[in-house]
């Protein structure tokens, strides 16, 4: 494991697609800046009465899709690119115990997510404070300490996506399959769930991955798209499950399948 970790680190950063995925993830801050600029433009041209009623969604949550998806795809590719090229057989020949390969990959993509997530979330938050100022009823002038739990919880979803992608990639061994399932699980199923009759939409909506950050932080000031019926500790456990269970399933399969 001591040796496999630096090997997997080099494996990831020696390929251009990984560097692109990380760069794209960081681009989430730019998207936040763009949306904030647009919102400010609209706000400033509105009448005082409209301005008093104007609300804006938390942009840290809006732009989160960018780092979530790009690092989710990075996670998928970390495994499936080896299956696509056949390199996996060499990788498992030089590490025949196998589990260190996936564990090291999980550590590498997990840490990249753990760094990228906060950079995008807190970066977007600072950009919004600067661009939006006291507009929109001072949403971005609230004390930082009050926003901290939500920002931390949002940041943590990024490494969860990276690990979820890695787990799905290991289980499916196919890039297209892994990415499709990732997007389906995260963006298609919630849409279906949201349109279910009550109370199903509320119950199932609460366990969707994108519903968890708000429930963990308990910050429910802005109405969300998802359900809010989980207490914070349960939401935190569920978020961890989204990251850990697919990787464990992948580990189990990797040890047993012929390569």
């Amino acid at each position, binding site marked *: 494991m*001591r*040796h*496999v970790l*630096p*090997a*997997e680190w*080099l*494996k990831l950063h*020696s*390929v*251009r*697609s990984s560097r692109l995925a990380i760069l794209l993830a960081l681009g989430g801050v730019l998207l936040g800046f763009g949306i904030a600029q647009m919102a400010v433009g609209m706000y400033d041209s509105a009448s005082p009465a409209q301005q008093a009623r104007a609300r804006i969604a938390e942009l840290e949550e809006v732009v989160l899709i960018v780092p979530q998806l790009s690092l989710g795809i990075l996670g998928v590719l970390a495994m499936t*690119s*080896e299956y696509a*090229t*056949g*390199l996996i*057989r*060499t*990788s*498992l*020949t*030089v*590490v*025949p*115990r196998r589990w260190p390969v996936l564990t090291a990959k999980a550590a590498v993509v997990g840490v990249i997510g753990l760094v990228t997530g906060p950079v995008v979330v807190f970066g977007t938050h600072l950009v919004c404070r600067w661009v939006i100022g006291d507009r929109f009823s001072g949403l971005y002038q609230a004390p930082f300490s009050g926003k901290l739990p939500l920002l931390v919880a949002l940041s943590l979803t990024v490494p969860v996506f990276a690990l979820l992608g890695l787990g799905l990639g290991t289980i499916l061994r196919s890039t297209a399959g892994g990415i499709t399932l990732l997007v389906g699980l995260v963006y298609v199923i919630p849409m279906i769930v949201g349109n279910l009759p009550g109370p199903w939409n509320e119950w199932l909506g609460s366990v969707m991955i994108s519903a968890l950050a708000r429930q963990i932080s308990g910050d429910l000031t802005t109405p969300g798209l998802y359900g809010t019926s989980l207490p914070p500790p349960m939401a935190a456990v569920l978020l961890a499950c989204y990251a850990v269970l697919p990787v464990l399933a992948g580990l189990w399969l990797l040890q047993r399948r*012929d*390569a």
Partner: protein
Amino acid sequence: MCPKPLVVKSTTMRLILGLDAPTSGEVLVNGKRYTTFLTPMREVGALLDAGAVHGGRSARDHLLCLARTNGIGPRRVTELLERVGLDGVARKHVGGFSLGMKQRLGIAAALLGDPGVLIFDEPVNGLDPDGVRWIRDLVRSLATQGRTILLSSHLMSEMALTADRIVIVSRGKLIAEATVEELTARHPSLEDAYLALTASSAGHRAGRP
């Protein structure tokens, strides 16, 4: 190892390397199961498929990734890139390599840990005469150093030039295991020996193409 059909030899090699699990029995390398080796590259070097590389990675990075897993340093990587004649293109993406260059890269990877046992699956397939000659000379020189080399091929004339001992496998069964001299003593050439021996193994010609 001269097998017929194809699947037998690749499966055998994958079983040795612990990539596939046997339904029964076990394979031991130097008295141990391959999967128990902590630094397998120092025991066995293998080249199964030279094309199994990530095209977007440089030759040097590819070897470094493999070397690191077994605690092998970058100096050894530089050494092997020179040895197989890829030092000039070490920083180039492997995707642009010819089959011959990929074959050399795969052999460099197999030699990283300086192992006593080497396994090459069809190393000369698709190579130009220069490449074939280079592999043959390399394999001979590695054998002279006292290494055990397990090499599979369908090219009988090539095997006659390269191998000391021949194992012929057909339809999943061992047909013959002998030195090249023993096999060619009773037949005009190794190719004739191969055809005669495999023909007598229960009419396999009527089977799959």
